[in-house]
């Protein structure tokens, strides 16, 4: 029997657990919808696959199932894009362009700020030692 179903089942189990916590947060915040369930699920999946007691019980082939769905991410995103209401959104085309580019430029400006606080990486240390 192909074991990939175990990986997919783990994914599904985490999805339900995450969705439960998302709905719980939705209930607590009064929004009555799934808030951050996908985020919770990702944390659960990482905890599960990084916990030796759980990870060691997963047969080797089971990760194939997770990898399949991981690889399906982009195709699903393409399908998602193709089913959006782009026709109506096109009048706001400049907003998308301005916002999309601005966000990246701001991120670029923040990188040198972070680098000032960053401890010297191993590579930089190595090259200095080599020079010395």
């Amino acid at each position, binding site marked *: 029997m192909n074991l990939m179903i175990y990986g997919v089942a783990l994914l599904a189990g985490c*999805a339900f657990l995450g969705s439960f916590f998302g709905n719980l947060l939705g209930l607590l915040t009064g929004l009555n919808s799934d808030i951050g369930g996908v985020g919770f699920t990702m944390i659960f999946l*990482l905890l599960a696959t990084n916990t030796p007691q759980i990870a060691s019980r997963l047969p080797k082939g089971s990760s194939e199932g997770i990898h399949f769905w991981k690889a399906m991410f982009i195709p699903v995103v393409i399908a998602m894009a*193709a089913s959006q209401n782009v026709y109506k959104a096109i009048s706001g085309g400049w907003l998308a362009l301005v916002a999309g580019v601005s966000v*990246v430029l701001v991120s670029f400006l923040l990188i040198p700020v972070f680098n000032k606080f960053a401890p010297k990486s191993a590579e930089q240390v190595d090259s200095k030692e080599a020079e010395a």
Partner: protein
Amino acid sequence: MSAILDIVVGIFTKNGFVMSFLMIGILSYLATLISDKLLRGRIPGSAVAIFFGLILAYIGGAISGGDKGISDIGIFAGVGVLGASTLRDFTIIATAYGAKLSEIKKCGFLGVIALLIGILSSYIVGALIAVAFGYTDAASVSTIGAGAVTFVVGPVTGAAIGADSTVIALSVATGLVKSVSIMLLTPLVAKKIGLTTPQAAIVFGGLVGSVSGTSTALASVDKKLVPYGAMIATFYTGVGCLLCPSVLYFLTNLIL
């Protein structure tokens, strides 16, 4: 002849979900071809394919007058199933697989701070621009701000807080523009912004997010930097999905 056409259309309509695999597959093939030959790899196939998807959605909306893009046209209805929230969330979750908690610990504090500031700054810039363009309701402003985080966080947030489909489409478009900008602009400024060390790559992945954008950009800067940036970016969408429809939406609601 029309009887044969009826059979073909009938098969595609009846098996819409299977049809969507064929359609997205062909679309991806064409996109990869255009990415490789016409654009010489400067824009990755996935970005081109998503762009094509948005064009198809536009065409579908223009023909049908509906609000679900190409999936409002009978034979393409399955695309709406493939791109609906169930499979979307399922595949997003799967992308977290392979990110190791031990690696995250090694990247340490700085990556986490970069991640949080990256999401926050993207959201704020997106939200401010949404306000500048005349949006005043918290749901729309938050969804566009979330779209400036990534093209996945936008629709997840929009669906959670009940934003208009038009605004959700706009958030996807914003996220797509962001993703493509990361891919196109990063190689041009990599040296100037000090994107030359693993540490800087972690910060980069945390700040800009977008797994496809980050991994593509780093691959064209220095292949060795890819895992560092991509690993932290893997969490970007998840943390964004966690923060945008909750804390950030509440704060936005409070301010507006």
